[in-house]
């Protein structure tokens, strides 16, 4: 093991990288609220792994979507486990990322010099909601269909641009085959690419700037 580490260290300086990434200085007083970012990252990885596996058995067409899902649930060994992980991981991800956001907000950790970390984080949070919205349609059951119908109609309520936004989302006037393929493309290609980029930048900033100390009560004795 250490021979491999030496080999890598000689070439790419792996010890320095490991030190920078893992042996970071952590401010005093950090505790459980600070794990939410790592939890979110873990859940994202879980969603990527299980999502890739699900895509191997999924067919995004109105004719096949539902039956391909039930085929994977009933006929593929561990199919229901993998889909269950993705299903629950999705809900947990929304919760974890939201709590992470609230923690950052209430601890005031978005302030100078971490504004960019905060802004990228907000966009990641929006992307996660986008994942939830697009992924919800893919099983192509009644709940999926009507939830997307409601979502698209909400979008169409926006002034001026609303109808156009809804039309672009649906890929047409009515919810149908094109909506499914579009949502699938958003869910497995567009959103993952954007999210991976933003998470990379977000993590770079976390390592670069470090994490903020928990807020303290103001010391009245200070001059």
């Amino acid at each position, binding site marked *: 093991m250490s021979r491999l580490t030496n080999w890598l260290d000689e070439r790419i300086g792996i010890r320095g990288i490991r*030190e920078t990434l893992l*042996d970071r*200085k952590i401010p005093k007083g950090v505790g459980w609220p600070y794990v939410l970012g790592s939890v979110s990252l873990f859940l994202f990885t*879980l969603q990527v*792994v*299980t999502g890739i*596996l699900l895509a*191997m*058995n999924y*067919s995004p067409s109105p004719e*096949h979507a539902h*039956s*391909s899902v*039930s*085929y994977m649930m009933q*006929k*593929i*060994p*561990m*199919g229901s*486990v*993998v889909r269950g*992980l993705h299903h629950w991981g999705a809900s947990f991800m929304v919760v974890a990322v939201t709590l992470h956001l609230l923690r950052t907000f209430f601890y005031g950790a978005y302030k100078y010099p971490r504004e960019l970390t905060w802004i990228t984080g907000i966009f990641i949070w929006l992307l996660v909601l986008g994942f939830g919205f697009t992924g919800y349609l893919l099983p192509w059951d009644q709940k999926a269909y009507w939830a997307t119908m409601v979502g698209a109609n909400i979008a169409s309520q926006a002034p001026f641009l609303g109808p156009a936004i809804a039309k672009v989302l649906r890929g047409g006037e009515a919810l149908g085959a094109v909506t499914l393929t579009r949502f699938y493309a958003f869910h497995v290609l567009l959103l993952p690419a954007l999210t991976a980029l933003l998470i990379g930048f977000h993590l770079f900033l976390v390592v670069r700037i470090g994490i903020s100390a928990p807020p303290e009560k103001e010391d009245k004795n200070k001059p």
Partner: protein
Amino acid sequence: MEKNNPPPSLPDTDSRRNFLKQGIFIMGGLITAGIGVPAVTYFLAPLWQKEEEDWTEVGTVAELPVGEPFKIDFVQRKRDGWMTVEGRSSAWAVTVDGEQFTVFDPRCTHLGCPYRWDAEKKKFLCPCHNAVFSVTGEVLAGPPPRPLDRFPVKVAGGKLFIKPAQKKGEG
């Protein structure tokens, strides 16, 4: 940044650090295994899934010719993932007594060409590379590596059923 390593004069701190380190590795290993085992099982599913062909009815025994091989055409229902597809398929069958049937895969065992029964020569002939099979499917001439493949056959309620299974490793 200065290093976080504790000075060597504090063995207690060192063992605590090692304990936590091991704990992290063990928990990480358990989580990885908990996700990895289902993931690998799912990914390798094609290896342990059995493709069970259903019996396909191909004719009424009383109406089938005795002695001479005959071609049977039938509609085969196949499972293709989550779909059931119907396809026209055929096979060559022969019976000597009207009770015991032999049904041959209609593809030559050489390279999969469709052969035919030559009623005058009393042999199966394949047009692609001049393979010749006897009425029992034995290779009489030509390049085929083995006798004609046979489908499982059963007679039930006066009907002839076959299981048109594909040989392993063939398309």
